[in-house]
């Protein structure tokens, strides 16, 4: 057994943290949120230069072939700094679909471009009424002479506005909630017939509802085998969920650090508010949750990398997500409470961490969703 990260990994994590402290401090992040694109080309380029976009990309396509465990440091840093760049969408979802099931041509087209920072991706999956079920898909892809024609509407496609390509789940046969008959397509976001209604999310990400109105794509837009979409989505979303758990570790650590610092320094009644036992017990509970979440994130990432049995992998990753969701709720609420009025101010990082934790708790399924999956 060995929970240590090796020296190279440690060096990399340290340099990511240094970069984000400099280029993604609270004020810099705020400028990025306010910018029209809602993201930073400069930071994306730096990620590319540091090899961070190449981390999980197979070596044959210009990457480092890292798994989830090797990406934990990066994800924790993202959580700490509340990075809003499309990292998880591009590297944790898009690149995963392609490296696992893409044809050689698809890999050649996409993976080196992602590694070099030239290509961003988003995953168009959620629909009206789907909640967190990957298998609930009404969008259709019909075979045509030239390839496929996609029709439907996807909701809350995180990072769609910045993306060059979308991975779209669509039905090639079957009924709205059938497990069979789902297929995945990789399409250019700029394809005629695709329309984006853009908005920002609670936690400052850019997203869009995406309509597909007779979107004609070539035959080679199909990713992997027709009809096996659900299996592919489960595997990749499990992988991304494990990464999200690692992101939560960073965000929770940052919330705890900020809160500890605050209650040590904020004085009321002539003493630091951290001298009251009720505040002490709260922060102790927050710190204990952090440790539990860190453990579950390790477990989830190891599973994502090494599991042989898909059901067992999904069960463990659900377990991690449940624990993470509970901790996100507890830590975000208590951190704000302990900050008093300050905790609600948009000027304080903690209010932004609160919002991100609120969304992490629900992304890829809330606690109820994963409780059901765990029990199944």
């Amino acid at each position, binding site marked *: 057994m060995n929970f240590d990260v090796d020296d190279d990994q440690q060096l990399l994590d340290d340099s990511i943290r240094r970069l984000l402290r400099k280029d993604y401090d609270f004020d810099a992040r705020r400028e990025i949120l306010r910018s029209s694109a809602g993201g930073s080309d400069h930071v994306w380029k730096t990620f590319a230069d540091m090899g961070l976009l190449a981390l999980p990309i197979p070596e044959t396509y210009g990457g480092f072939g890292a798994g989830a465990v090797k990406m934990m440091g990066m994800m924790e840093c993202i959580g700490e700094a509340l990075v809003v760049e499309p990292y998880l969408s591009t590297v944790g979802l898009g690149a995963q679909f392609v490296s696992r099931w893409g044809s050689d041509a698809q890999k050649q087209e996409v993976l080196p471009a992602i590694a070099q920072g030239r290509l961003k991706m988003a995953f168009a999956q959620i629909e009206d009424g789907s909640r967190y079920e990957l298998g609930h898909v009404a969008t259709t892809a019909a075979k045509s002479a030239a390839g496929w024609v996609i029709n439907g509407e996807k909701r809350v496609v995180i990072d769609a506005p910045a993306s060059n390509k979308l991975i779209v789940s669509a039905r090639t046969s079957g009924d709205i909630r059938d497990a069979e008959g789902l297929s995945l397509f990789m399409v250019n976001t700029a394809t005629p017939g695709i329309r984006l209604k853009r*908005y920002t999310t609670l936690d400052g990400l850019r*997203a869009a509802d995406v309509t597909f109105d007779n979107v004609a794509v070539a035959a080679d837009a199909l990713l992997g085998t027709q009809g096996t979409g659900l299996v592919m989505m489960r595997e990749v979303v499990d992988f991304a969920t494990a990464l999200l758990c690692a992101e939560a570790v960073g965000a929770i650590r940052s919330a705890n650090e900020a809160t500890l610092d605050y209650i040590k320094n904020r004085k009321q009644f002539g003493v630091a508010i951290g001298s009251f036992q009720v505040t002490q017990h709260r922060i102790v509970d927050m710190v204990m949750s952090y440790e539990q979440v860190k453990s579950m994130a390790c477990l989830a990432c190891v599973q994502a990398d090494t599991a042989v049995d898909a059901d067992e992998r999904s069960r463990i990753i659900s377990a991690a997500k449940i624990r993470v969701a509970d901790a996100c709720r507890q830590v975000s609420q208590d951190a704000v409470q302990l900050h*008093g009025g300050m905790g609600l101010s948009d000027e304080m990082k903690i209010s932004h961490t609160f919002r991100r934790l609120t969304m992490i708790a629900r992304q890829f399924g809330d606690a109820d969703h994963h409780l059901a999956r765990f029990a199944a």
Partner: protein
Amino acid sequence: MDLNFSAEELAFRDQVRSWLNATMPRDLRDKVANNERLSKAEIVRWHRMLADQGWIAPAWPVEWGGTGWNVVQRYIFEEECGYAGAPQLPRFGLSMCAPVLLKFGTEAQKRRYLPKIYNGEEIWCQGYSEPGAGSDLAALSTRAEKRGDAYVVNGQKIWTTIAHHADWMFCLVRTSAQTGKRQEGISFLLVDMKTPGIRVKPIILMDGGHDVNEVFFEDVRVPAENLVHEEGKGWTVAKYLLGHERMNSGRIAGSKRELQKLKKLASKEMRNGVPLMSDVRFRDRLTRVEIELMALEITNLRFLDRMRRTGQPPGADVSMLKIKGTEITQLITELMMDAVGPLAQPTLPVDDIDGWDMFVASLAPVYCLTRKSSIYAGSNEIQRNIIAKMTLGL
């Protein structure tokens, strides 16, 4: 034991209900239903409608416009307003400044301020909290120095709700250097917000909205006649008011309305092809809140009944109502957000979006903003301290 309202009380309830149904403007009702912020003009519009009906200040003495209702009738009225989704009017003038003036004000002060509070002509805000004085209010340091027939005020207030709309502020200031107890040397002043030297700076909260402000005072001259009660006796006034502030903090009517909305929403939202309402996990979470609210309603009535019979002012009871009431409100906002699942994420359109659902988009921000209710008006930790000390003698 009889937990039912009497026939007269029921008749009264019907009268209030039908008036509200007939009178409440559609546009205001819709805005409230969509969790939209009301403009100052809209708030004043509803205020005036209630004033015209004679129902704006039920708790005031009849000679100043009160309705003469007993505590149960007042409770029923609040309940009906909440249930009908009537806009919540700022309480600072009607339920905070006015009771203070009625108890401690001079005749001249009552005559000057009460009618304009009553008819909505002047909006008030509350200037208590300061950067260094939140839970520990007695640590406040905004100074008021007597110079001739005026106090000259210097210092800063923070978290002042609707200071940007307000015509007047009632505030606590330090009129003499701290010598003995910190509570001494504090005075209660009425300040015209148009006085030179006052600067109001918005604070944006995490729902992206503007309700609260910082207020800076630089050599602000306040006529000495704006002092309420005696100089140095501001703490007595503030303590009297705190009881009033927390009287209606159970927010039971509002929570009942929100719970109804939540049930409707959860019956419409689908999970795996069946309504979310039939999902055991979600339904049980909702039911637990519903039961807590049911209990709190009866607890509240028990406390009211005791007050009515003993004539005693509410004690540490109100702390419990505040804690439980805010916990329930917060849980409901969380369930609302959860009910719509991933669709709660979008909050602010970038493009011009046809059919943008304002209500769904408001659920996550409202959840965030509602974290305030366990912090303000005496944080829930401070309320627990009060119960521990006053009720349990710890």
